[in-house]
């Protein structure tokens, strides 16, 4: 309980962290209540497909029927950004949690036991890190076949090595601490020592990096979608909506900002989502530091 109060105090102290919390909270609400905010039209089976109003190429400005307008191909922007929040959370959380899990398991094994195992695992991460990540991710998506699932797999593959290395490094450091030796002296097994004594002291940098990186994951997923490698056409996904806007960034000569809504609105959603996680990452840094007074 006092930990919760401490967390709340720490958040309140820093207005930027609080902003991050608020932004992410709003996105969570949007994602949870998507069916209420933007109801799926009757008769449509898959809620994640954006309803379209005709097949016309030119985006249409906001109107009563489409309060944020439509994109190229007459997909409803409002519906797309609301349901896109769900896609964003799914990609971000799935990619980040699997990446962290792989990083923690492999990083702990390499760091705690060292020796040959460490050598092998670290050389494998070297191989992955030697590729330019975007090229590797694109190649993987092409091989696996475009789609949101492929994007997630590709991002996990390019992301885990840096976490494995980060966690390994921190574990190497914590492993040498006296309290780890003391825990072994008290009769704790290797597994227990790693899980109870080493990881809790070694994992905070990785958790903080993860919350900062969630934004980057969403951006990368959007980048892959923007390149046409992401979700199938019409799927509620912010990256894809920016791709729809590709040809409409600049309007006709007499009105260059004519199609602003098609570009700006999905872009703003991505921007705020990434910003929110970054601010939250800073907040985590303050909260997770066990050496800060918790009184």
């Amino acid at each position, binding site marked *: 309980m006092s930990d919760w109060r401490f967390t709340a105090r720490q958040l309140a102290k820093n207005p930027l962290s609080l902003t991050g919390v608020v932004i992410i909270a709003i996105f969570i609400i949007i994602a949870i209540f998507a069916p209420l905010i933007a109801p799926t039209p009757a008769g449509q089976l898959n809620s994640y497909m954006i309803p379209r109003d005709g097949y016309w190429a030119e985006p249409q400005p906001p109107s009563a029927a489409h309060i944020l307008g439509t994109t190229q191909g007459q997909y409803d922007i409002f519906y797309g950004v609301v349901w896109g929040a769900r896609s964003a959370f799914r990609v971000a959380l799935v990619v980040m949690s699997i990446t962290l899990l792989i990083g923690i398991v492999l990083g702990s094994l390499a760091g705690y036991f*060292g020796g040959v195992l460490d050598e092998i695992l670290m050389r494998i991460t070297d191989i992955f890190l030697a590729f330019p990540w975007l090229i590797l991710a694109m190649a993987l998506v092409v091989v696996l076949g475009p789609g949101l699932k492929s994007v997630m797999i590709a991002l996990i593959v390019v992301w885990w090595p840096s976490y494995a290395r980060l966690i390994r490094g921190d574990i190497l450091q914590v492993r040498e601490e006296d*309290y780890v030796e*003391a825990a072994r002296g*008290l009769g704790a097994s290797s597994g227990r020592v790693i899980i109870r004594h080493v990881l809790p002291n070694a994992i905070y940098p990785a958790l903080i990096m993860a919350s900062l990186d969630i934004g980057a994951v969403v951006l990368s997923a959007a980048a892959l979608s923007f390149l046409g490698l992401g979700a199938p056409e019409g799927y509620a996904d912010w990256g894809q909506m920016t791709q729809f806007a590709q040809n409409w960034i600049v309007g006709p000569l007499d009105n260059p900002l004519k199609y602003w809504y098609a570009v700006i609105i999905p872009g703003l959603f991505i921007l705020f989502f990434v910003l929110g996680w970054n601010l939250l990452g800073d907040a985590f840094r303050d909260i997770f530091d066990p050496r800060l007074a918790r009184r």
Partner: protein
Amino acid sequence: MEDLVRIRDLTVRFHTYEGVVYAIDDLDLDIRQGETLGIVGETGSGKTMTALAILRLIPYPGRIESGSIVFFDKGLRSELELLKLSEDKMRSIRGCKISMVFQEPGSALNPVYTIGDQISEVYLLHQRQELGRQAKRRIDSLLGNGGTLAASIKRPFWRWQSRLYNKIAEGSNPLEPRILSHIPLFRRLLWRLKDEAGLLTVSMLKDVEIPDPDRVAGRYPHELSGGMKQRAVIAMALACSPELLIADEPTTSLDVTIQAQMLELFRRIKADRGASVLFITHNLGVAAEVCDRVAVMYAGRLCEVAGVEEIFLHPMHPYTKALLEAVPMPGKELQTIPGALADAFNPPPGCRFHPRCPSAMPTCQHERPKLKEVAKDHMVACYLY
């Protein structure tokens, strides 16, 4: 007096890239029941490694090359060869029958857990059965009393809990609690174990004279002073009433008044519990205060072992004499030991002390002096005797 630990021919080496370090070389040492044995020696003489060898915790790349360490288990009334035990069995001895207080009180505590959590962990590791028994007793008393509506609703739950804790009390790692303790939410059903451990923790903290133990149990290590932390570490080591307590320079990093309090605490613990203490220090004054016998180590070997008065009044080994000369005293010019510490990679042959010894003779250079009993309870390894 009977021996609690008998170390014979213990050899520990570190195989490093630069060569082999002879950290401990053919060491014979006994720790008797109920005594405080001091190990003194300069830095690098192998004091810590001797202690870690007993716990079988020599860090990589070190290895126990040969020897035997026999531990007489009072509870089981049997002798255990520690170097031959399985790792599982050894784990059940560490922290329970033999425990260790480390040099730095600050860093021996995990910064992310409260003092109470860390001490409780020792009980949860080694005394699950007793905790289970206590918990069952408490639930059974709940079952016994009260005919209120609330009590009769909760009764089936209590009955199940009673059965659960009984299984833990009977030991042999039963399935149901074992599964429960691995599932995050269900783990809470075993909260009584933690509660019982918490009660024991508070009384343990009281025992090492920590004021206001209830509150201190909820504190994080960084919120305590050095002396308090050291007391907490001692409490942790004493939690399971070990038969041997190893204290590796437990007072070095504390200031003098706190040091005196700690020494007092050690003396009382020994008197109260009848445990043996292996007290490692490089401070002869401290050794004189707390020890019954003192062993002097030099470059991985023993030079002299004798009762504390004997060694201070009639030191025999030239190294012991030199050490005593080097203790600062008012009105006396400070003597230093000439020469440098033995090189750990290329230790001198014969007597390791011969390059620095004022009475060295030709044999000392190539033949190793054996540890001999030259007076009653007074062992020396030197050709002078």
